[in-house]
């Protein structure tokens, strides 16, 4: 997971890191999912931080 900023705001360094990561495509809104087997027709995708 890439760093996210606290709701109350971050330091200039933290903000710079987050913005630069986002500009380079380093975001947390992606992942991989492997389909269930045994002839399953559905697979559930969960948020990675659901726990």
């Amino acid at each position, binding site marked *: 997971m890439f760093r996210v900023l606290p709701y109350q705001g971050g330091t200039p360094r933290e903000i710079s890191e987050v913005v630069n990561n986002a500009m380079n495509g380093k975001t*947390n*809104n*992606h*992942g*991989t*999912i*492997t*389909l*269930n*087997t*045994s*002839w*399953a*027709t*559905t*697979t*559930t*995708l*969960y*948020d*990675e*931080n*659901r726990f």
Partner: protein
Amino acid sequence: MRIGFDSKIIILPDSASAQTSAIPYGEINSTTGQTAPSTGTTAVVEFDNITQNNGIYQDGTNDSRIYVRDAGVYNVMYSLQLINTTNDGQYADVWFRINGTDVADSASRFGLPARKSSGDPSELIGAMNIFLTLDADDYIEVAGGVSDVGVELWYDTAKTTPFVRPAIPSVILTLNAVSGGSLSNVYVSAQQKGQATITHFANNTSNKTYGYVIIG
């Protein structure tokens, strides 16, 4: 939480198996000869050997039935190794069934010349393909009738003389979905906060992995 009710989820193949084996297909044959029960009686062709399988199955009871796990339009083709053991010209009419019901306009007639000599039948490959619209767990059959029970489906073992060749199945049937693919068959069918249901073709391939991006 990232997945919401209004999120858009983009899904892309992320492994070789996800890219190559997504479309349902199958091949099945018979390793035995088959004869019609009597002239003027409809019979069904039987199969006993699945050789390619990505979404077909048999029920273990009815050897004539080939089931599909996924709905879709399928290109279905049979190849019958027909022989005529009689001393007259004969024919075989062959057609498709879905769930036991004849498919309209699916029949073909294959004419066979008289046998070459006693114990040396005439041979003919009867082949035909058709598009069939099937629901998940529908079954198809190949049905037929013959003008004489001397018209048979012939099986022959592998030979080494006069040249090396594989066995001749009495029938080969292939089918493959003609719609859908590694991209279009995988989609979000439901979603809620924190999770989404991904619907796809019936899968039994390991490591079929997709990448996803969530927007919104």
